[in-house]
């Protein structure tokens, strides 16, 4: 790749990202698999960046997984989204900060639909009013939570305790970034850097000292495929697509994969274990996998948060090799602790992947 590209071609996609006062909508998958990431995000927003972000008890799932697996009608999801907007409006906010990439895509798609088909917006208003008595305003700004971290990546860099550099060699760590499909593939102008060379994560990685790997299957889907994962018989689709990515990135020896979508993070983590079981194949060095991290986890590590407070113990692929390269100190015995510091027995470590 030439120098010209590394500086980024973001100029043609000038995405606006609100600077403060966000209404936070959580992600089903992130809460389930990486709850520490959402905790870290709010902590960074409030404690490091001094932002006002509202965490509402009454919002629900956007039903996006149900919608994309076709058991939730378009009209229904429009109205559920309208309800989230109504809650935001009622709390006095105009800027939506979205934790989930599927949801982010849903919000963008629905707002775009309402622009092109105003009768759909009218219907959503009527439906919401009838069902809940609520009214709503369309957010002034919709940002994925990774957009916000991107926006403040320099401020985070200033507070950084660690840099994404191999502490032994001084070389930048090689990081693969994987962008969730629904972040920019549907609406390239809604993503930082567009759909083809999305720079929301690569800009963070570079400014925090790491190097971004450009590998052939960079843009390929992780393979979630909604119904293709939800049904056991279809999971071959899901794993095969992830495998295609790993095969493609392997020659570049990435130190970790960073994702902005919680689903991608989880699948690219778990499928490495299943591939190891099925094919006795691992993609990291020394029989290990390649750690797959959320961008919140990455930001948290850079800021010096404890890896086990971030929730790295919830990953199937162990992240210790990555932490060691970063020179991050951690207490191994704390990895599997429960609430109030209680030490628990850890998970079974599979023989196929260390």
């Amino acid at each position, binding site marked *: 790749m030439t120098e010209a590209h590394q500086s980024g071609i973001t100029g043609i996609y000038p995405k606006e990202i609100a600077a403060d006062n966000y209404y936070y909508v959580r992600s089903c998958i992130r809460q389930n698999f990486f709850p520490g990431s959402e905790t870290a995000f709010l902590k960074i927003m409030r404690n490091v960046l001094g932002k006002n972000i509202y965490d509402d008890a009454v919002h629900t799932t956007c*039903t996006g997984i149900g919608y994309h697996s076709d058991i939730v009608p378009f009209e229904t999801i429009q109205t559920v989204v309208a309800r989230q907007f109504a809650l935001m409006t009622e709390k006095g906010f105009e800027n939506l900060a979205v934790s989930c990439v599927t949801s982010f895509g849903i919000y963008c798609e629905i707002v775009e639909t309402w622009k092109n088909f105003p009768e*759909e917006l009218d219907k959503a208003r009527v439906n919401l009013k009838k069902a809940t008595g609520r009214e709503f305003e369309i957010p002034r700004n919709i940002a994925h939570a990774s957009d916000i971290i991107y926006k403040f990546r320099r401020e985070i860099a200033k507070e950084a305790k660690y840099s994404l550099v191999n502490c032994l060699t001084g070389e930048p760590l090689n990081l693969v970034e994987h962008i969730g499909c629904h972040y920019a593939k*549907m609406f390239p102008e809604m993503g930082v850097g567009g759909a083809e060379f999305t720079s929301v994560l690569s800009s963070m990685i570079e400014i925090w000292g790491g190097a971004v790997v450009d590998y052939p299957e960079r843009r390929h889907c992780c393979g979630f495929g909604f119904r293709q994962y939800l049904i056991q018989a279809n999971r071959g689709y899901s794993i095969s697509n992830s495998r295609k990515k790993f095969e493609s990135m392997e020659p570049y020896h990435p130190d970790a994969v960073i994702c902005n979508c919680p689903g991608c993070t989880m699948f690219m983590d778990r499928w490495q274990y299943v591939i190891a079981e099925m094919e006795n194949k691992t993609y990291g060095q020394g029989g290990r996998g390649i750690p797959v991290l959320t961008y919140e986890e990455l930001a948290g590590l850079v800021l010096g948060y404890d890896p086990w407070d971030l929730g790295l113990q919830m990953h199937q692929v162990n992240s210790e090799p990555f932490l060691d390269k970063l020179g991050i100190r951690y207490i191994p015995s704390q990895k599997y602790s429960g609430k109030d510091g209680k030490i628990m027995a850890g998970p079974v470590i599979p023989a196929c992947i260390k």
Partner: protein
Amino acid sequence: MDLFKRLNEDVRFREGLKACMNCGICTAICPAAEFYDYDPRVLVTTVESMDNEEIESLLKSDAIWYCGQCMSCKTRCPRGNVPGMIVSVLRKVSQELGYFTESRMGRQQYAIAKTVGDNILSYGYCVHPSKINPGLHPEQGPVWEWIFKNREDIYTRLGANFDKPGAGALRKISREALDELKAIFDETGGTELLKKIEEFSLKKAHESGFEPNGTTEDDYFREVYKKNDHSGIK
């Protein structure tokens, strides 16, 4: 029934189908086309033919169920078509008309309604830790077995408000919020769709000699959830 007209009632169909020039740019990078006998370009041209018989057999076929909704096709199509969106509408109509039970992949909708559908209405989440049973999800690995077993400890340690009222990750969604969600489903056809999926599925199950009881444990659920070959289904 004029199926093309029926499809065209949905704004997403009108948004997704402009005019295909058969360039194949969608198929080239389609994750489903790589691993399934599937070609989004061919699907679009079939729909575009407006041939009622062709569309009917499409609605009864596996072909509409292979797409993984990644929407990579939308980024690239030089004519602004969105095969992934057309697929959504085909699936909707296939379910409304009960055609989905005619194909192996279509029948799987029963299992999705039983899992994700129930999660949404009972918990307010599409997925919930208590519903990801390691037995049904061996691919989640030993780490998930550990999380599943110790979930209260682990989630609490990571700052979640697990299964409790108030804000926070994995908070218990209040009765009022769940009631609003249900009211929205009732008002907008969401409940109706879930009912249709169940009715058509159970009809097919009974015709084929299954004895489903409407849970994720029943024989029909296991058949459609686990099997790649539905030789037992008529």
